């Protein structure tokens, strides 16, 4: 069946938990306002179980209740892995076979973001979750530019290294920094290089929505829990599948 509902302790009960702050002091009206919000979110009945004033003008609420929305799993859009997951040997073999040269990858954490643990996990030998990073693949030539790289520097380096793929990481998301930076990056590549010369653009980070690739002007988005092998396999799929050279 494709229609499901949240589950508290009985099939179909629809129960969920919600918490939020309203910018009002705590009184009955505030509680009513909290319930109104829960109702608007589709919770009915909405059980206000906790309300606590913080400072002068804010109140924190916890609400439990039944949502009447149905979830249709058939309607779920996901970016399914549409390429086979390859071993390192297979990746290397495919690149050798199709490109007849090493595939050049340039990675960086752009903007003012200095969170390198994620991109390092993908690129560095050490890897993550028991998988070695892309540096381990003999047919990949990896340049890891580190953190706080500006877009012009990135474009320049990509050009210099004749990058087949550019891997960008973005972890800070406050005020949509990650989206802004990614858009700036893809625009710069579009401007700097003609179609066909442009490297494959990949971004990653824990808070991206994988469905937004087109919107952000990149080829692919990777998010929470990505492993290097997935990225390597995708590179083969996108750059070293089909025709013998790109």
């Amino acid at each position: 069946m494709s229609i499901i509902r949240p589950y508290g302790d009985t099939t179909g009960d629809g129960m969920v938990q919600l918490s939020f702050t309203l910018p009002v002091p705590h009184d009955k009206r505030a509680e009513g306002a909290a319930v109104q919000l829960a109702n608007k979110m589709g919770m009915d009945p909405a059980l206000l179980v906790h309300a606590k004033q913080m400072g002068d003008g804010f109140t924190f609420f916890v609400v439990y209740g039944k949502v009447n929305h149905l979830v249709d799993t058939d309607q779920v859009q996901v970016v399914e892995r549409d390429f086979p997951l390859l071993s390192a040997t297979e990746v290397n073999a495919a690149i050798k076979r199709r490109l007849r040269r090493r595939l050049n990858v340039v990675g960086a954490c752009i903007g003012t973001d200095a969170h390198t643990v994620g991109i390092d996990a993908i690129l560095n030998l050490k890897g993550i979750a028991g998988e070695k990073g892309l540096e381990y693949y003999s047919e990949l030539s990896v340049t890891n530019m580190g953190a706080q790289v500006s877009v012009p520097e990135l474009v320049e380096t990509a050009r210099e290294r004749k990058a087949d793929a550019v891997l960008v990481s973005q972890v800070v998301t406050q005020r949509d920094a990650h989206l802004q930076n990614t858009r700036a990056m893809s625009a710069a590549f579009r401007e700097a290089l003609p179609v066909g010369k442009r490297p494959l653009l990949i971004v990653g980070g824990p808070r991206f929505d994988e469905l937004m690739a087109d919107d952000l002007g990149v080829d692919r988005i990777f998010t929470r829990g990505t492993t290097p092998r997935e990225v390597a396999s995708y590179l083969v799929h996108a750059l070293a599948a089909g025709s013998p050279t790109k």
Partner: protein
Amino acid sequence: MAGKLDLDPRTVRTARRLAARAGQPVVDLARSHTTVSVERAVLRLAGVHGADQDGIPWVNRLVDAVRADVGLGHGVAVPVFHAMRSTGVDDITVLAQKAAAGAVRFDLPSTRAESTAARRAARSQAGAGLKVVDRRRRERDRLIKRFGDPRQRPWIYLIVATGDIYEDIPQAQAAARAGADVIAVIRSTGQSLLDYVPEGATREGFAGTYATQENFRLMRAALDETSKELGRYVRLTNYASGLCMPEIAALAGMERLDMMLNDSMYGILFRDINPIRTFVDQRFSRQVHARAGIIINTGEDNYLTTADAVEAAHTVTVSQLLNEFFAHEAGLEDWQLGLGHAFEINPDLPESFRLELAHALLARELFPDAPLKWMPPTKHMTGDVFRGNLLDGFFNLVGALTGQGILLVGMMTEAVVTPWLSDRDVALQNVRYVLNGAGSLHEDFVPAPGGFIQSRAHHVLSEAIELLEKIVDDSLLDAIADGTFGIMKRPADRGKGLDGVAKHDEDYYNPVTEALEQ
């Protein structure tokens, strides 16, 4: 573990001696009375099963009929087996059905020979029931040997409470897979006041599922499967509590339940059941548990939901000492005494955590060989589930630091709903974190000599002794009437189920008690 509080062994001995003196009159009362439920338990062990169209068990109909004809004071065994012989009915359930239809009249045997024959028949049939109980106990021992006990102490105890046995089963299995060592199926709110045990598989409880023989069987079978899958024997708990405590104990023995909630005063205080009825039922049910190798869980934790956990700390100690005395008297061994206590101090109180440690350690050191059941915060839980999960973590830590035997896992939604599937998962993750990361911290926990924790424990123990002295002087029944425990006032001549109590006549005969007291 022992010795951290530097308790004076003489003081401890005094406390125990006082508890024995306070409890003895109640034991005497229990030895000289019977109840409808005790008698029904005898007949259940002797083989009566099933219920009429209205769901009233045949065993109730049978006891009611005997009582109407000859009263309860002789015990039902002799009149019933005498009737079997005289009517020629050889299936006891059939006899019950006939009795219900008014087709049998009960009387006492008129000759010594008839009387002896009836007793012999009763002894043999009830013995068959006890043999089932014995077989179950051996079976448990075998399965524990095969599957193994939990790797860690405390055992992790989780509740399911959907009201529907068929929802309970998968939830219990999921809980066991997620790490629960003990599963308790909470009962429907109304059951404790029913003067009969419902029949069959049930799906319509409120905030709990009915305790029935069939539900017991279904859940035990499901958990046997899961035990096998996990390579760890998962224990099952239910409630031998309320008006039918003796019968439920018998059913639990026959269906291999492993632990039973069974407290000497809970029914009196929290269900307003008559004190005498309770004490009589209590003693019998504990004798059955002793035989069945079932661990009892007492209910001192409940006092702290109505009384203040600091002010009334010593009442918990007193009740534990009484529960121990009654349990030993009924034949239970120390390893079967899951004495209850709880993390219920107002968390806003300065030093609340150290007070909890003091109380928990006192229980630990007073009862070094009992498993002790450590109950989570409930009263001071609020709808703030984030805070709730935190309190549960510190509760778990006290459990680990003081070597509790059984840890009832607290739920962050305690003040909101009966546990959701995800609540249990969050809660177990909490327990795992604490036991895994700080499970051996007790090695480094050394209450400062003469410091806060030791002084508090000594103080509670001395308050307990004072209270016990008072109880010895006045009587336990008076103390209960006065609201000593849980601030609930329960006079001995009030409460539910008193009409189901009868004083033994001189010729009172109970083949089960006889066997259990051998």
